[in-house]
Protein backbone atom coordinates (compact mmCIF):
# COMPACT_ATOMS: atom_id res chain seq x y z
CA UNK A 1 0.00 0.00 0.00
CA UNK A 2 2.73 2.40 0.99
CA UNK A 3 4.72 1.57 -2.10
CA UNK A 4 1.62 2.08 -4.22
CA UNK A 5 1.10 5.53 -2.72
CA UNK A 6 4.77 6.26 -3.31
CA UNK A 7 4.64 5.24 -6.94
CA UNK A 8 1.44 7.22 -7.39
CA UNK A 9 3.20 10.21 -5.93
CA UNK A 10 6.17 9.74 -8.20
CA UNK A 11 3.97 9.59 -11.27
CA UNK A 12 2.70 13.13 -10.56
CA UNK A 13 4.96 15.59 -12.37
CA UNK A 14 6.97 17.75 -10.01
CA UNK A 15 5.54 21.06 -11.26
CA UNK A 16 2.04 19.95 -10.31
CA UNK A 17 1.87 21.13 -6.71
CA UNK A 18 -1.32 21.23 -4.68
CA UNK A 19 -1.43 25.00 -4.98
CA UNK A 20 -1.10 24.90 -8.75
CA UNK A 21 -3.82 22.29 -8.99
CA UNK A 22 -6.24 24.20 -6.75
CA UNK A 23 -5.73 27.39 -8.73
CA UNK A 24 -5.33 25.83 -12.15
CA UNK A 25 -8.45 23.70 -12.19
CA UNK A 26 -11.08 26.44 -11.74
CA UNK A 27 -8.95 28.77 -13.86
CA UNK A 28 -9.00 26.41 -16.81
CA UNK A 29 -12.72 25.77 -16.29
CA UNK A 30 -13.68 29.43 -16.45
CA UNK A 31 -11.20 30.33 -19.18
CA UNK A 32 -12.54 27.62 -21.45
CA UNK A 33 -16.24 28.05 -20.70
CA UNK A 34 -16.53 31.78 -20.02
CA UNK A 35 -13.69 33.56 -21.76
CA UNK A 36 -12.88 31.53 -24.87
CA UNK A 37 -16.54 31.58 -26.07
CA UNK A 38 -16.53 35.40 -26.10
CA UNK A 39 -13.44 35.37 -28.33
CA UNK A 40 -15.19 32.96 -30.67
CA UNK A 41 -18.27 35.20 -30.80
CA UNK A 42 -15.99 38.10 -31.64
CA UNK A 43 -14.40 36.04 -34.39
CA UNK A 44 -17.73 34.96 -35.87
CA UNK A 45 -19.11 38.49 -35.72
CA UNK A 46 -16.26 39.42 -38.05
CA UNK A 47 -16.89 36.65 -40.53
CA UNK A 48 -19.35 36.60 -43.37
CA UNK A 49 -22.35 34.34 -43.56
CA UNK A 50 -22.42 31.83 -46.34
CA UNK A 51 -25.43 29.80 -47.34
CA UNK A 52 -24.54 26.76 -45.26
CA UNK A 53 -21.92 27.74 -42.75
CA UNK A 54 -19.92 30.57 -41.35
CA UNK A 55 -16.83 31.07 -43.45
CA UNK A 56 -13.59 30.72 -41.63
CA UNK A 57 -11.89 33.97 -40.84
CA UNK A 58 -8.52 32.32 -40.77
CA UNK A 59 -7.55 30.28 -43.79
CA UNK A 60 -4.26 28.43 -43.88
CA UNK A 61 -2.13 29.16 -46.87
CA UNK A 62 1.04 27.15 -46.54
CA UNK A 63 2.28 27.70 -43.03
CA UNK A 64 0.93 31.22 -42.50
CA UNK A 65 -2.67 31.96 -41.64
CA UNK A 66 -4.30 34.65 -43.68
CA UNK A 67 -6.86 36.69 -41.81
CA UNK A 68 -9.71 38.53 -43.37
CA UNK A 69 -12.07 40.67 -41.41
CA UNK A 70 -15.60 41.23 -42.50
CA UNK A 71 -17.29 44.10 -40.73
CA UNK A 72 -20.48 43.91 -42.77
CA UNK A 73 -22.53 42.75 -39.75
CA UNK A 74 -21.47 45.80 -37.78
CA UNK A 75 -22.09 48.12 -40.70
CA UNK A 76 -25.58 46.69 -41.05
CA UNK A 77 -26.11 47.06 -37.30
CA UNK A 78 -25.10 50.71 -37.46
CA UNK A 79 -27.14 51.52 -40.55
CA UNK A 80 -30.42 49.93 -39.48
CA UNK A 81 -32.36 52.22 -37.17
CA UNK A 82 -34.34 49.36 -35.69
CA UNK A 83 -31.25 47.99 -33.96
CA UNK A 84 -30.39 51.35 -32.46
CA UNK A 85 -33.99 51.80 -31.29
CA UNK A 86 -33.93 48.32 -29.75
CA UNK A 87 -30.69 48.93 -27.86
CA UNK A 88 -32.05 52.23 -26.54
CA UNK A 89 -35.36 50.72 -25.50
CA UNK A 90 -33.61 47.76 -23.78
CA UNK A 91 -31.50 50.18 -21.82
CA UNK A 92 -34.46 52.31 -20.85
CA UNK A 93 -36.53 49.28 -19.75
CA UNK A 94 -33.57 48.06 -17.70
CA UNK A 95 -33.08 51.55 -16.27
CA UNK A 96 -36.72 51.91 -15.19
CA UNK A 97 -36.69 48.38 -13.77
CA UNK A 98 -33.64 49.28 -11.69
CA UNK A 99 -35.21 52.54 -10.55
CA UNK A 100 -38.52 50.95 -9.49
CA UNK A 101 -36.72 48.06 -7.78
CA UNK A 102 -34.63 50.56 -5.85
CA UNK A 103 -37.70 52.60 -4.89
CA UNK A 104 -39.57 49.52 -3.66
CA UNK A 105 -36.56 47.66 -2.31
CA UNK A 106 -34.74 50.35 -0.37
CA UNK A 107 -37.52 51.07 2.15
CA UNK A 108 -38.15 47.34 2.35
CA UNK A 109 -34.51 46.50 3.12
CA UNK A 110 -34.37 49.43 5.54
CA UNK A 111 -37.36 48.23 7.56
CA UNK A 112 -36.16 44.63 7.33
CA UNK A 113 -32.78 45.61 8.82
CA UNK A 114 -34.56 47.43 11.65
CA UNK A 115 -36.98 44.59 12.41
CA UNK A 116 -36.40 42.61 15.64
CA UNK A 117 -33.29 40.42 15.23
CA UNK A 118 -35.15 37.15 15.82
CA UNK A 119 -37.47 37.86 12.88
CA UNK A 120 -34.79 38.79 10.38
CA UNK A 121 -33.76 35.26 9.38
CA UNK A 122 -37.39 34.44 8.61
CA UNK A 123 -37.88 37.69 6.66
CA UNK A 124 -34.82 36.92 4.52
CA UNK A 125 -36.03 33.38 3.92
CA UNK A 126 -39.39 34.72 2.76
CA UNK A 127 -37.59 36.87 0.17
CA UNK A 128 -35.60 33.87 -1.04
CA UNK A 129 -38.57 31.49 -1.07
CA UNK A 130 -40.16 32.67 -4.37
CA UNK A 131 -36.68 32.42 -5.88
CA UNK A 132 -36.74 28.65 -5.30
CA UNK A 133 -39.92 28.32 -7.33
CA UNK A 134 -39.34 28.23 -11.06
CA UNK A 135 -38.90 31.72 -12.45
CA UNK A 136 -40.59 30.63 -15.67
CA UNK A 137 -43.68 29.43 -13.80
CA UNK A 138 -43.93 32.66 -11.83
CA UNK A 139 -43.77 34.71 -15.03
CA UNK A 140 -46.37 32.41 -16.50
CA UNK A 141 -48.56 33.05 -13.44
CA UNK A 142 -48.46 36.78 -14.18
CA UNK A 143 -49.94 35.96 -17.57
CA UNK A 144 -52.94 34.38 -15.82
CA UNK A 145 -53.24 37.39 -13.53
CA UNK A 146 -52.96 40.12 -16.14
CA UNK A 147 -55.00 38.67 -19.00
CA UNK A 148 -58.27 40.45 -19.90
CA UNK A 149 -60.52 38.00 -18.03
CA UNK A 150 -57.85 37.40 -15.39
CA UNK A 151 -57.93 37.79 -11.64
CA UNK A 152 -56.87 41.44 -11.51
CA UNK A 153 -59.33 42.67 -14.12
CA UNK A 154 -62.13 40.61 -12.55
CA UNK A 155 -61.36 42.01 -9.12
CA UNK A 156 -61.34 45.59 -10.44
CA UNK A 157 -64.62 44.97 -12.29
CA UNK A 158 -66.23 43.44 -9.20
CA UNK A 159 -65.18 46.43 -7.14
CA UNK A 160 -66.75 48.67 -9.73
CA UNK A 161 -63.56 50.64 -10.23
CA UNK A 162 -63.56 49.96 -13.95
CA UNK A 163 -66.35 49.29 -16.45
CA UNK A 164 -64.49 47.20 -18.95
CA UNK A 165 -61.30 45.15 -18.61
CA UNK A 166 -58.05 47.06 -18.99
CA UNK A 167 -55.70 45.75 -21.64
CA UNK A 168 -52.69 44.90 -19.47
CA UNK A 169 -51.09 41.78 -20.93
CA UNK A 170 -48.58 42.20 -23.76
CA UNK A 171 -48.04 45.88 -23.04
CA UNK A 172 -45.04 47.74 -21.65
CA UNK A 173 -46.94 47.73 -18.33
CA UNK A 174 -47.01 43.92 -18.05
CA UNK A 175 -43.37 43.79 -19.13
CA UNK A 176 -42.39 46.17 -16.33
CA UNK A 177 -44.44 44.19 -13.79
CA UNK A 178 -42.61 41.01 -14.79
CA UNK A 179 -39.18 42.64 -14.77
CA UNK A 180 -39.64 44.36 -11.40
CA UNK A 181 -41.14 41.20 -9.96
CA UNK A 182 -38.22 39.01 -11.09
CA UNK A 183 -35.40 41.33 -10.15
CA UNK A 184 -36.69 42.82 -6.89
CA UNK A 185 -35.05 40.15 -4.65
CA UNK A 186 -31.69 40.88 -6.32
CA UNK A 187 -32.08 44.48 -5.20
CA UNK A 188 -33.35 43.75 -1.69
CA UNK A 189 -30.72 41.20 -0.63
CA UNK A 190 -27.53 43.26 -1.16
CA UNK A 191 -29.27 46.33 0.29
CA UNK A 192 -30.31 44.37 3.36
CA UNK A 193 -26.81 42.87 3.74
CA UNK A 194 -25.43 46.39 3.72
CA UNK A 195 -28.06 48.09 5.90
CA UNK A 196 -28.03 45.40 8.56
CA UNK A 197 -24.36 46.12 9.18
CA UNK A 198 -24.98 49.85 9.60
CA UNK A 199 -23.52 51.07 12.89
CA UNK A 200 -26.46 52.32 14.96
CA UNK A 201 -24.18 54.68 16.89
CA UNK A 202 -24.01 57.08 13.93
CA UNK A 203 -27.80 57.38 14.00
CA UNK A 204 -27.83 57.87 17.77
CA UNK A 205 -25.14 60.52 17.51
CA UNK A 206 -27.16 62.35 14.86
CA UNK A 207 -30.30 62.15 17.01
CA UNK A 208 -28.38 63.38 20.07
CA UNK A 209 -27.17 66.34 18.10
CA UNK A 210 -30.77 67.18 17.30
CA UNK A 211 -30.88 65.98 13.71
CA UNK A 212 -34.36 65.31 12.36
CA UNK A 213 -34.90 61.60 11.52
CA UNK A 214 -35.51 62.41 7.83
CA UNK A 215 -32.34 64.43 7.65
CA UNK A 216 -30.44 61.63 9.43
CA UNK A 217 -31.76 59.21 6.84
CA UNK A 218 -30.62 61.31 3.88
CA UNK A 219 -27.34 62.49 5.38
CA UNK A 220 -26.18 59.32 7.12
CA UNK A 221 -28.06 56.14 6.24
CA UNK A 222 -28.22 56.63 2.48
CA UNK A 223 -24.57 57.66 1.97
CA UNK A 224 -23.35 54.81 4.20
CA UNK A 225 -25.34 52.27 2.17
CA UNK A 226 -23.91 53.46 -1.14
CA UNK A 227 -22.06 50.18 -1.74
CA UNK A 228 -25.28 48.22 -1.28
CA UNK A 229 -27.19 50.53 -3.61
CA UNK A 230 -24.58 50.22 -6.35
CA UNK A 231 -24.35 46.42 -5.96
CA UNK A 232 -28.13 46.03 -6.10
CA UNK A 233 -28.46 48.32 -9.12
CA UNK A 234 -25.79 46.44 -11.06
CA UNK A 235 -27.30 43.06 -10.16
CA UNK A 236 -30.61 44.26 -11.61
CA UNK A 237 -29.51 46.43 -14.51
CA UNK A 238 -26.96 44.16 -16.24
CA UNK A 239 -29.10 41.03 -16.66
CA UNK A 240 -32.21 43.16 -17.31
CA UNK A 241 -30.64 44.68 -20.44
CA UNK A 242 -30.39 41.26 -22.09
CA UNK A 243 -33.60 39.76 -20.71
CA UNK A 244 -35.35 37.43 -23.13
CA UNK A 245 -37.96 35.30 -21.36
CA UNK A 246 -39.97 38.11 -19.71
CA UNK A 247 -40.44 40.23 -22.86
CA UNK A 248 -41.26 37.09 -24.81
CA UNK A 249 -44.02 36.00 -22.39
CA UNK A 250 -45.32 39.31 -21.05
CA UNK A 251 -44.24 41.95 -23.55
CA UNK A 252 -46.21 42.68 -26.68
CA UNK A 253 -44.97 42.49 -30.24
CA UNK A 254 -43.96 46.14 -29.97
CA UNK A 255 -41.82 45.90 -26.85
CA UNK A 256 -38.34 45.99 -28.29
CA UNK A 257 -35.70 44.17 -26.29
CA UNK A 258 -32.26 43.29 -27.61
CA UNK A 259 -32.37 39.77 -26.13
CA UNK A 260 -35.30 39.00 -28.39
CA UNK A 261 -33.53 40.39 -31.45
CA UNK A 262 -30.49 38.24 -30.71
CA UNK A 263 -32.70 35.18 -30.29
CA UNK A 264 -34.52 35.81 -33.58
CA UNK A 265 -31.33 36.50 -35.53
CA UNK A 266 -29.99 33.21 -34.30
CA UNK A 267 -32.99 30.89 -34.27
CA UNK A 268 -35.25 32.35 -36.98
CA UNK A 269 -32.81 33.96 -39.40
CA UNK A 270 -29.93 31.59 -38.72
CA UNK A 271 -27.64 34.56 -39.16
CA UNK A 272 -24.78 33.71 -36.85
CA UNK A 273 -22.48 36.64 -37.69
CA UNK A 274 -25.35 39.08 -37.12
CA UNK A 275 -26.33 37.43 -33.81
CA UNK A 276 -22.66 37.59 -32.79
CA UNK A 277 -22.37 41.26 -33.71
CA UNK A 278 -25.54 42.03 -31.70
CA UNK A 279 -23.95 40.16 -28.77
CA UNK A 280 -20.64 42.01 -28.99
CA UNK A 281 -22.35 45.41 -29.04
CA UNK A 282 -24.51 44.35 -26.06
CA UNK A 283 -21.34 43.29 -24.23
CA UNK A 284 -19.78 46.69 -24.91
CA UNK A 285 -22.89 48.37 -23.51
CA UNK A 286 -22.75 46.47 -20.23
CA UNK A 287 -18.96 46.66 -19.98
CA UNK A 288 -18.93 49.70 -17.68
CA UNK A 289 -21.60 48.46 -15.22
CA UNK A 290 -19.87 45.07 -15.31
CA UNK A 291 -16.53 46.61 -14.38
CA UNK A 292 -18.14 48.47 -11.47
CA UNK A 293 -19.81 45.27 -10.32
CA UNK A 294 -16.61 43.22 -10.52
CA UNK A 295 -14.71 45.87 -8.59
CA UNK A 296 -17.34 45.77 -5.83
CA UNK A 297 -17.23 41.98 -5.76
CA UNK A 298 -13.49 41.84 -5.24
CA UNK A 299 -13.64 44.64 -2.66
CA UNK A 300 -16.32 42.83 -0.71
CA UNK A 301 -14.06 39.83 -0.24
CA UNK A 302 -10.78 41.61 0.29
Amino acid at each position, binding site marked *: MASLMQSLKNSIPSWLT*GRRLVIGLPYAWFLILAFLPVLI*VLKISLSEMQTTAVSGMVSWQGTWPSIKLDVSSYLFLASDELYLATYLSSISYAFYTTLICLGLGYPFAYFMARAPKRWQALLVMLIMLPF*WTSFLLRIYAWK*TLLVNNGLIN*NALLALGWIDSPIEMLNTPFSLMIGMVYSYLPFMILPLYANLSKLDGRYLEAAADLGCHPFKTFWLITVPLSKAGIVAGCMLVFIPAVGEYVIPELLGGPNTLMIGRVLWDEFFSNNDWPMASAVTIVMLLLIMLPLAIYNKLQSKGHA
Partner: protein
Amino acid sequence: MNSTALKWFGRSWMLLVYAFLFLPIFTLVAYSFNDSQLVTVWSHASLRWYKALMQDSDLIAAVMLSLKIAFLSALVSVFFGLFSAFALHRYRRFTGRGVLSSLASTPLVMPDVIVGLSLLLMLVSVQQALGYPERGLFTILLGHALLGTAYATVVVRSRLTEMDSKLEEAAMDLGCRPWQVFSLVTLPLLMPALLSAFLLTFTLSFDDVVLSSFLSGPGYSTMPMVIFSRARLGLNPSINALATVTIVVVTLVVIASTLYSLRQDRQRKRDIAQAQQE
Protein backbone atom coordinates in the same frame (compact mmCIF):
# COMPACT_ATOMS: atom_id res chain seq x y z
CA MET B 1 -44.12 61.37 11.23
CA ASN B 2 -43.73 59.94 14.73
CA SER B 3 -42.14 56.58 15.44
CA THR B 4 -45.38 54.54 15.73
CA ALA B 5 -46.61 55.85 12.41
CA LEU B 6 -43.22 55.02 10.88
CA LYS B 7 -43.40 51.52 12.29
CA TRP B 8 -46.82 50.92 10.77
CA PHE B 9 -45.74 52.44 7.50
CA GLY B 10 -42.79 50.03 7.48
CA ARG B 11 -44.95 47.04 8.27
CA SER B 12 -47.50 47.78 5.58
CA TRP B 13 -44.75 48.46 3.04
CA MET B 14 -43.18 45.07 3.77
CA LEU B 15 -46.54 43.33 3.70
CA LEU B 16 -47.35 44.82 0.28
CA VAL B 17 -43.99 43.76 -1.18
CA TYR B 18 -44.40 40.23 0.19
CA ALA B 19 -47.92 40.11 -1.25
CA PHE B 20 -46.52 41.18 -4.62
CA LEU B 21 -43.84 38.46 -4.45
CA PHE B 22 -46.20 35.68 -3.40
CA LEU B 23 -49.35 36.57 -5.37
CA PRO B 24 -48.34 34.67 -8.55
CA ILE B 25 -47.37 31.59 -6.55
CA PHE B 26 -50.73 31.46 -4.78
CA THR B 27 -52.52 31.94 -8.09
CA LEU B 28 -50.68 29.01 -9.64
CA VAL B 29 -51.62 26.76 -6.75
CA ALA B 30 -55.24 27.92 -6.55
CA TYR B 31 -55.96 27.56 -10.25
CA SER B 32 -54.36 24.12 -10.44
CA PHE B 33 -57.43 22.83 -8.57
CA ASN B 34 -59.83 24.59 -10.94
CA ASP B 35 -61.96 22.31 -13.10
CA SER B 36 -62.55 24.82 -15.88
CA GLN B 37 -60.81 24.45 -19.21
CA LEU B 38 -60.39 28.23 -19.22
CA VAL B 39 -57.47 28.98 -16.94
CA THR B 40 -58.97 32.23 -15.72
CA VAL B 41 -62.55 31.19 -14.97
CA TRP B 42 -63.24 29.42 -11.70
CA SER B 43 -65.80 26.60 -11.96
CA HIS B 44 -65.25 24.13 -9.12
CA ALA B 45 -62.46 22.30 -7.41
CA SER B 46 -61.10 19.14 -9.00
CA LEU B 47 -57.93 17.17 -9.57
CA ARG B 48 -58.56 17.08 -13.30
CA TRP B 49 -55.30 18.77 -14.27
CA TYR B 50 -53.26 16.50 -12.04
CA LYS B 51 -54.69 13.53 -13.94
CA ALA B 52 -53.91 15.27 -17.22
CA LEU B 53 -50.40 15.92 -15.97
CA MET B 54 -49.84 12.25 -15.15
CA GLN B 55 -50.82 11.25 -18.67
CA ASP B 56 -48.66 13.89 -20.28
CA SER B 57 -45.76 11.72 -21.35
CA ASP B 58 -43.89 14.52 -23.15
CA LEU B 59 -43.85 16.62 -20.04
CA ILE B 60 -42.89 13.70 -17.78
CA ALA B 61 -39.97 12.78 -20.03
CA ALA B 62 -38.87 16.42 -19.93
CA VAL B 63 -39.07 16.47 -16.13
CA MET B 64 -36.92 13.33 -15.96
CA LEU B 65 -34.31 14.84 -18.28
CA SER B 66 -34.30 18.06 -16.25
CA LEU B 67 -33.85 16.16 -12.98
CA LYS B 68 -30.94 14.23 -14.44
CA ILE B 69 -29.22 17.34 -15.80
CA ALA B 70 -29.87 19.31 -12.61
CA PHE B 71 -28.38 16.57 -10.43
CA LEU B 72 -25.25 16.19 -12.56
CA SER B 73 -24.74 19.92 -13.04
CA ALA B 74 -25.13 20.55 -9.30
CA LEU B 75 -22.43 17.95 -8.59
CA VAL B 76 -20.03 19.45 -11.15
CA SER B 77 -20.82 23.01 -9.99
CA VAL B 78 -20.14 22.24 -6.35
CA PHE B 79 -16.89 20.48 -7.28
CA PHE B 80 -15.47 23.37 -9.33
CA GLY B 81 -17.06 25.96 -7.04
CA LEU B 82 -15.24 24.44 -4.08
CA PHE B 83 -11.94 24.66 -5.95
CA SER B 84 -12.38 28.22 -7.16
CA ALA B 85 -13.67 29.48 -3.79
CA PHE B 86 -10.78 27.76 -2.03
CA ALA B 87 -8.21 29.14 -4.48
CA LEU B 88 -9.56 32.69 -4.13
CA HIS B 89 -9.81 32.46 -0.36
CA ARG B 90 -6.57 30.70 0.46
CA TYR B 91 -4.13 32.12 -2.05
CA ARG B 92 -4.09 35.88 -1.74
CA ARG B 93 -1.39 36.50 -4.31
CA PHE B 94 -1.05 34.74 -7.61
CA THR B 95 -0.83 35.90 -11.18
CA GLY B 96 -4.27 36.57 -12.53
CA ARG B 97 -6.14 36.32 -9.24
CA GLY B 98 -8.23 39.32 -10.22
CA VAL B 99 -8.98 37.70 -13.57
CA LEU B 100 -10.17 34.50 -11.90
CA SER B 101 -12.30 36.48 -9.48
CA SER B 102 -13.95 38.40 -12.32
CA LEU B 103 -14.38 35.29 -14.46
CA ALA B 104 -16.07 33.55 -11.54
CA SER B 105 -18.48 36.38 -10.79
CA THR B 106 -19.32 37.54 -14.32
CA PRO B 107 -21.71 34.66 -15.19
CA LEU B 108 -23.85 35.75 -12.21
CA VAL B 109 -24.96 38.92 -13.94
CA MET B 110 -24.26 38.21 -17.61
CA PRO B 111 -27.52 38.03 -19.58
CA ASP B 112 -28.40 34.39 -20.31
CA VAL B 113 -28.69 34.96 -24.03
CA ILE B 114 -25.04 36.05 -24.21
CA VAL B 115 -23.78 33.07 -22.20
CA GLY B 116 -25.94 30.67 -24.22
CA LEU B 117 -24.99 32.00 -27.63
CA SER B 118 -21.27 32.26 -26.95
CA LEU B 119 -21.05 28.82 -25.37
CA LEU B 120 -22.95 27.29 -28.27
CA LEU B 121 -20.74 28.92 -30.90
CA MET B 122 -17.66 27.65 -29.10
CA LEU B 123 -19.04 24.12 -28.82
CA VAL B 124 -19.94 24.16 -32.52
CA SER B 125 -16.37 25.21 -33.37
CA VAL B 126 -15.02 22.39 -31.20
CA GLN B 127 -17.38 19.95 -32.82
CA GLN B 128 -16.30 21.01 -36.30
CA ALA B 129 -12.69 20.44 -35.34
CA LEU B 130 -12.98 17.26 -33.27
CA GLY B 131 -16.34 15.75 -34.21
CA TYR B 132 -17.37 15.98 -30.57
CA PRO B 133 -19.48 16.91 -28.58
CA GLU B 134 -22.84 16.24 -30.14
CA ARG B 135 -25.46 18.77 -28.98
CA GLY B 136 -27.61 17.25 -26.25
CA LEU B 137 -27.42 16.37 -22.60
CA PHE B 138 -23.68 16.95 -22.33
CA THR B 139 -23.72 20.42 -23.85
CA ILE B 140 -26.69 21.54 -21.70
CA LEU B 141 -24.86 20.16 -18.71
CA LEU B 142 -21.76 22.25 -19.50
CA GLY B 143 -23.80 25.45 -19.72
CA HIS B 144 -25.63 24.81 -16.46
CA ALA B 145 -22.41 23.80 -14.72
CA LEU B 146 -20.71 27.03 -15.81
CA LEU B 147 -23.52 29.13 -14.32
CA GLY B 148 -23.72 26.86 -11.28
CA THR B 149 -19.98 27.07 -10.59
CA ALA B 150 -20.25 30.85 -10.38
CA TYR B 151 -23.06 30.61 -7.82
CA ALA B 152 -21.39 27.80 -5.87
CA THR B 153 -18.21 29.89 -5.68
CA VAL B 154 -20.11 32.75 -4.02
CA VAL B 155 -21.80 30.46 -1.48
CA VAL B 156 -18.66 28.53 -0.54
CA ARG B 157 -16.48 31.63 -0.52
CA SER B 158 -18.73 33.54 1.86
CA ARG B 159 -18.74 30.53 4.19
CA LEU B 160 -14.92 30.35 4.05
CA THR B 161 -14.72 34.05 4.90
CA GLU B 162 -16.84 33.75 8.01
CA MET B 163 -15.21 30.47 9.08
CA ASP B 164 -12.79 30.42 11.96
CA SER B 165 -9.31 29.85 10.55
CA LYS B 166 -8.02 28.98 14.04
CA LEU B 167 -9.24 25.40 13.67
CA GLU B 168 -7.23 24.93 10.48
CA GLU B 169 -4.21 26.53 12.09
CA ALA B 170 -4.55 24.25 15.11
CA ALA B 171 -4.66 21.18 12.87
CA MET B 172 -1.54 22.40 11.09
CA ASP B 173 0.22 22.99 14.41
CA LEU B 174 -0.68 19.45 15.42
CA GLY B 175 1.19 18.19 12.37
CA CYS B 176 -1.52 17.67 9.76
CA ARG B 177 -0.42 17.78 6.15
CA PRO B 178 -2.21 20.39 4.00
CA TRP B 179 -4.52 17.85 2.37
CA GLN B 180 -5.28 16.35 5.79
CA VAL B 181 -6.22 19.79 7.12
CA PHE B 182 -8.47 20.17 4.11
CA SER B 183 -10.17 16.78 4.29
CA LEU B 184 -10.41 16.48 8.11
CA VAL B 185 -11.13 20.07 9.12
CA THR B 186 -12.07 22.40 6.26
CA LEU B 187 -14.32 20.05 4.31
CA PRO B 188 -16.53 18.97 7.26
CA LEU B 189 -16.91 22.62 8.29
CA LEU B 190 -17.91 23.49 4.73
CA MET B 191 -20.55 20.75 4.52
CA PRO B 192 -23.60 23.01 5.17
CA ALA B 193 -22.35 25.50 2.57
CA LEU B 194 -21.75 22.69 0.06
CA LEU B 195 -25.28 21.43 0.67
CA SER B 196 -26.86 24.82 0.11
CA ALA B 197 -24.67 25.35 -2.97
CA PHE B 198 -25.88 21.99 -4.27
CA LEU B 199 -29.54 22.91 -3.73
CA LEU B 200 -29.08 26.34 -5.28
CA THR B 201 -27.27 25.09 -8.39
CA PHE B 202 -29.75 22.22 -8.74
CA THR B 203 -32.60 24.74 -8.74
CA LEU B 204 -30.83 27.02 -11.20
CA SER B 205 -30.34 24.18 -13.64
CA PHE B 206 -33.88 22.87 -13.15
CA ASP B 207 -35.20 26.36 -13.88
CA ASP B 208 -33.09 27.38 -16.85
CA VAL B 209 -34.72 27.82 -20.23
CA VAL B 210 -32.42 30.12 -22.20
CA LEU B 211 -29.12 28.22 -21.92
CA SER B 212 -30.91 24.91 -22.55
CA SER B 213 -32.61 26.25 -25.68
CA PHE B 214 -29.28 27.31 -27.14
CA LEU B 215 -27.33 24.23 -26.14
CA SER B 216 -29.85 21.44 -26.63
CA GLY B 217 -30.03 19.20 -29.66
CA PRO B 218 -32.92 17.33 -31.27
CA GLY B 219 -34.69 15.02 -28.83
CA TYR B 220 -33.45 16.83 -25.74
CA SER B 221 -36.20 19.04 -24.35
CA THR B 222 -35.91 19.99 -20.71
CA MET B 223 -38.96 20.74 -18.57
CA PRO B 224 -38.62 24.53 -18.77
CA MET B 225 -38.23 24.29 -22.56
CA VAL B 226 -41.54 22.41 -22.81
CA ILE B 227 -43.28 24.81 -20.41
CA PHE B 228 -41.90 27.80 -22.29
CA SER B 229 -43.07 26.59 -25.67
CA ARG B 230 -46.56 25.94 -24.27
CA ALA B 231 -46.70 29.23 -22.38
CA ARG B 232 -45.80 31.09 -25.56
CA LEU B 233 -48.84 29.64 -27.27
CA GLY B 234 -51.21 30.52 -24.46
CA LEU B 235 -52.38 29.37 -21.07
CA ASN B 236 -52.44 25.70 -20.16
CA PRO B 237 -53.96 24.42 -16.89
CA SER B 238 -51.75 21.35 -16.53
CA ILE B 239 -48.79 23.73 -16.20
CA ASN B 240 -50.50 25.00 -13.02
CA ALA B 241 -50.67 21.45 -11.69
CA LEU B 242 -47.00 20.90 -12.49
CA ALA B 243 -46.14 24.19 -10.80
CA THR B 244 -47.99 23.17 -7.66
CA VAL B 245 -46.17 19.85 -7.51
CA THR B 246 -42.76 21.54 -7.85
CA ILE B 247 -43.69 24.23 -5.29
CA VAL B 248 -44.66 21.58 -2.73
CA VAL B 249 -41.47 19.58 -3.31
CA VAL B 250 -39.24 22.66 -3.23
CA THR B 251 -40.87 24.01 -0.06
CA LEU B 252 -40.37 20.68 1.70
CA VAL B 253 -36.72 20.49 0.64
CA VAL B 254 -36.05 24.10 1.67
CA ILE B 255 -37.67 23.57 5.08
CA ALA B 256 -35.79 20.30 5.61
CA SER B 257 -32.44 21.80 4.68
CA THR B 258 -33.06 24.86 6.88
CA LEU B 259 -33.88 22.60 9.82
CA TYR B 260 -30.81 20.49 9.07
CA SER B 261 -28.44 23.46 9.02
CA LEU B 262 -30.05 24.90 12.19
CA ARG B 263 -29.48 21.57 13.91
CA GLN B 264 -25.88 21.41 12.69
CA ASP B 265 -25.38 24.92 14.03
CA ARG B 266 -26.80 24.06 17.44
CA GLN B 267 -24.75 20.84 17.56
CA ARG B 268 -21.59 22.78 16.81
CA LYS B 269 -22.34 25.34 19.51
CA ARG B 270 -22.98 22.51 22.01
CA ASP B 271 -19.70 20.85 21.02
CA ILE B 272 -17.83 24.10 21.47
CA ALA B 273 -19.45 24.71 24.88
CA GLN B 274 -18.60 21.18 25.95
CA ALA B 275 -15.02 21.48 24.76
CA GLN B 276 -14.65 24.69 26.70
CA GLN B 277 -15.92 23.04 29.89
CA GLU B 278 -13.46 20.17 29.65
